[in-house]
């Protein structure tokens, strides 16, 4: 093996290494920039009874990239499917909008989740796409704030008491009416 051929081999290896490094440096951030997830509806929504359906969709922002259902106008959002190896990760934080105490509440392919049983106050949600190893494919979405503002206790107890009173009267009318009917029937017989 001549020195020239060794040099050529070295240059080839060096060239390949540089290429790989460049790929690692640029391709991944590019992938991040290309795929994004966003929630449907307003950024802040209120839920008087502590439940809400969260919906989201993903988009490919590179116009030259492969077509995804979300940038085909004719395709309804409900039919969006993620590639096999990807899934969504939905996180919730009940204390900080910076997601310092975030908990993952869902991992999977559904583009919606019905959240309920939320306590009074603000709840923050964010979603992203991850691969099978749990590595992020897209950055986190913009946060969605769910404001749970329960009905006032005065209104609640007024309506509860009204309901209880109606029920009591209803039963009383029925019981008294039935007894009267029974006694009138026995009188007749």
């Amino acid at each position: 093996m001549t020195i020239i051929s060794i040099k050529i081999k070295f240059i080839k290896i060096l060239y390949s290494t540089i290429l790989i490094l460049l790929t690692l440096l640029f391709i991944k951030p590019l992938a991040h920039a290309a795929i994004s997830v966003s929630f449907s509806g307003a950024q802040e929504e209120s839920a008087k009874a502590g439940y809400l359906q969260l919906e989201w969709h993903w988009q490919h922002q590179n116009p030259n990239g492969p077509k995804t259902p979300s940038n085909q106008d004719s395709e309804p959002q409900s039919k969006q499917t993620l590639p096999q190896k990807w899934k969504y990760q939905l996180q919730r934080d009940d204390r900080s909008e910076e997601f310092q105490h975030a908990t993952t509440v869902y991992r999977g392919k559904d583009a919606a989740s019905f959240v309920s049983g939320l306590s009074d106050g603000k709840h923050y949600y964010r979603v992203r796409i991850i691969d099978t190893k749990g590595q992020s494919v897209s950055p986190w979405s913009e946060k969605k704030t769910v404001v749970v503002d329960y009905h006032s206790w005065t209104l609640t107890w007024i309506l509860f008491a009204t309901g209880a009173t109606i029920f009591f009267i209803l039963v009383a009318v029925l019981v008294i009416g039935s007894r009267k009917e029974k006694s009138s029937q026995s009188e007749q017989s």
Partner: protein
Amino acid sequence: MKFQSAILSETTGLIILSILGALWVFIGYLWGKKAKNLDGYMLAGRKVGLALGSATAMATWVTSNTTMLAPQFALQLGIWGMLAYSTASVGLFLFAPMAKRIKNLMPHGITSGDFIMKRYGKKVWTVFLLISLFYSVTWLISMAMAGGILLNTISGIPYGVGMSVILLVCVLYTLFGGMYAVIGTDFIQSIIILIGTVLVGIAVLGEIEIGQVYNNLKEFKPSLISVMLPAAIIALFNNLLFGVGEIFHSNVWWSRAFAMEKGVGQKAYTLAAFFWFPIPIAAGFIALASGTLNINVVSPDMVGPLIASHILGQVGAVVVFIVIFSSLASSIDSLLAATSDLLAEDIYRKILNKQASEQTLRKAAAIIIAGLGIVTWLFCLPKIGTLASVLFFAGPMVGSTIFPILLGLFWPSASPTGALWAMLLGTAIGLTAYFMIGWYSASLVGTAISMVVMFAFTWFKPDQYIWATLTTKDFSK
């Protein structure tokens, strides 16, 4: 995907659909042979016994809503929500003594409209008929639509096919056999529903521990196990009154009261309420277990079928399919029969053809069943998913009829003017509450207003009604 994928293959779904469909039509045809005259066709000869009576009341009340909405209530409003839905059985309990009274007062009555016309006159009857028809038709359409959607979600059967088959099967056997067919199929369907629900319930309890469910809810959905959830507290009596309103006014329940043998109605409705009561609690508990089983719920009304198939696999999916098909059929057939009776007796005989003979009226009822089926099918074709929510509008409407009917049955002093204003004001203010507070308050507010108006008129402008008027055989005017 936004919605969960099918849990049963389309071929399996179509095979079950065909077998069950053929079975119902065959049974309907066989039972229908008993219907020799108008009373036989519309009211099963007024000779329905205790077993068939309780089964038909129970099966009719287990609708697609019980399997879809009861789990939804639990997921939205927690323990209170679960209880709130099961309070719909209170309507059956309270109707039991009324069934006895109705049968005693009106031994020859055919529809709830007959009672309103004789008791309160034409004005109240018109408002009542509008409310009742709105409720019946919306319920019918929403149920046929729910049938198509459910069968599609469970087995992938195209929406149009599932909806059309379920509607066609029900129309066919109701048309052939009238009330005989409805009650006969209801009996078998109620057994299927009970066995299916018990099977799924046992399987869920075998798979998870109640402690796990509690811990999961405490961590992720704390309000669902809290007794202090305002919307749920409001919903408790609201749902109870919605159920009471539905049962008190609807001809579905009145026609059964007329159809049962004397002395059977009260016992049959009480038994039906006992059998029905645990079903929504079981369905609700299954929904609360979704978090423990790591099941993401996209659409809360699909949680029951999802969990059943998750735990029992393909067997569970088949059981759920059969239970849902049975619960849909048992309600759609009852609605078709009761609404066609209402239209034949209250519109055709009272307005269009006062001299109609029994035979003409029977023909009219059959044509109306077929017509109702076609109209429902046309409404269902576009698959307006939101139409089911229109049924909730009916909450304050039916709530406003509770006191006019109750006082009208027991108090001779209940006046027609009071009944008219009770229904109008109850509906209007109840609907306002629907938009101002929420769906979970509308029936309650509607009933409250109607009750106050009814009592006020009874107190200040009492009537002196003579009960003997109701014993007539002629309800044509």
